[in-house]
């Protein structure tokens, strides 16, 4: 096995691309990120690992705007993310310049995924060590969209998804609790999913909400704390209701 995971991406005898799989490992070690699609809103949430005291937290943006109607969050190697995000931003403007139309969410996802794939099939390079969650509104149909890409270059559309640390738990939670939501309910669902794996509180989560008319908006810490308080209250009420029920059994 050790012979097939050298610095270049080549097939192993049993059909694996080890470099790509190792890249997925890097993603699994990255911070948790979640995306939820509602009927009129899409929400991105990212775990904020505790910032060192002397670091200016404002310089560490986890959710990036690619265009006025597209945003991206990722898990994995942040330096690789910078490169990918930059290329995507240029492509968004390039597309507007050549065809005088903004990109669709699918187009830019396909572009980013294509880029990630290229680096699994070139000499002397390694794959990008990140998975992305891309959200936005289709400029023609006004429908919200959520897509995910990974280091292998595959992409697909999702109603809700998670990536990074403990993504399996978050995805399980989302599968159990997902329903069509809008506005605040969508935001709450995203935060609830994140709180499954992240320490509670506005200090530890970064949440951004995208709507058709207002573009991307980062929630303030105070706002997030409000949502967390609401969620905690709902959880407590549910617990109390459960404790009340056993009389029937």
């Amino acid at each position, binding site marked *: 096995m050790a012979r097939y995971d050298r610095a270049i991406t080549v097939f192993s005898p049993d059909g694996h691309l080890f470099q790509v799989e190792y890249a997925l490992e890097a993603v699994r070690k990255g911070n948790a990120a979640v995306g939820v699609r509602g009927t009129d809103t899409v929400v991105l949430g990212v775990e904020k690992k505790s910032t060192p005291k002397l670091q200016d937290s404002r310089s560490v*943006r986890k959710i990036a*705007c*690619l*265009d006025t109607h597209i945003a991206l969050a990722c898990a994995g190697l942040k330096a690789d993310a910078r490169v990918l995000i*930059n290329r995507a*931003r*240029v492509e*968004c*403007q*390039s597309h*507007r*310049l050549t065809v005088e139309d903004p990109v669709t969410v699918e187009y830019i996802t396909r572009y980013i995924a294509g880029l990630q794939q290229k680096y699994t099939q070139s000499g002397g390079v390694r794959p990008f060590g990140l998975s992305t969650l891309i959200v936005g509104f289709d400029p023609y149909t006004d429908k919200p969209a959520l897509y995910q890409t990974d280091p292998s270059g595959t992409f697909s559309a999702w109603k809700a998804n998670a990536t990074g640390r403990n993504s399996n738990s978050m995805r399980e939670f989302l599968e159990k609790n997902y329903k069509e939501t809008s506005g605040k309910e969508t935001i709450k669902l995203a935060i609830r999913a994140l709180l499954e794996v992240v320490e509670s509180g506005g200090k530890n989560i970064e949440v951004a909400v995208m709507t058709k008319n207002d573009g991307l908006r980062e929630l303030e810490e105070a706002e997030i704390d409000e949502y967390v308080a609401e969620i905690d209250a709902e959880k407590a009420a549910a617990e109390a209701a459960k404790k009340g029920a056993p009389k029937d059994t």
Partner: protein
Amino acid sequence: MECVLGVVGRDFAVVAADTSAVQSILVHKTDEDKVMVLDSHKLMGASGEPGDRVQFTEFIQKNLHLYQFRNTIPLSTAAAANFTRGELATALRKNPYMVNIILGGYDKDVGASLYYIDYIATLHKIDKGAFGYGSYFCLSLMDKLYHPDMTVEEAVDLVDKCIKEIRLRLVVAPQNFVIKIVDKDGAREYARRELVGHNAPVEAATTVAA
């Protein structure tokens, strides 16, 4: 025959241009918008080779937007003007853009500013300026009538006087003009001055015998 002009007032800048699209003896259209809104607080009035004009101004606009996405803050007017000049200069001795530009913008810290950028990459920061044959008339009018810190009404009145002079004295003069303004509230269209086309006044120039 294309004219672009600009004037700086108190905390605002006005950029006006004719709206004719002409090829040899044919007028393609009389409502061609030659003053591009580069971003929320910048206007770029351009005249010259039609293909180059659109290509170059759109290119500058998209690059300004890219800068804003990369850095979360917009480029200042001065920086945008210098960037534009740089692009013209780079292309000059290979594949020059035949475009003359009046760039007006508003920045919170500096206020309103206006830049003159010609096709061979000259850059001047100005209070008033004009391009084209119309400039022969406009510049003298501006010299006479401009004063610093004009109000919007005074500035637009000056532009209107320039337009009137162009219409009167320039052979094959453009008839329709667009006036755009940029101030702390952003860049937007202020008015159109139209003598021909759908929106022209119906009675036009005929006089009725008493």
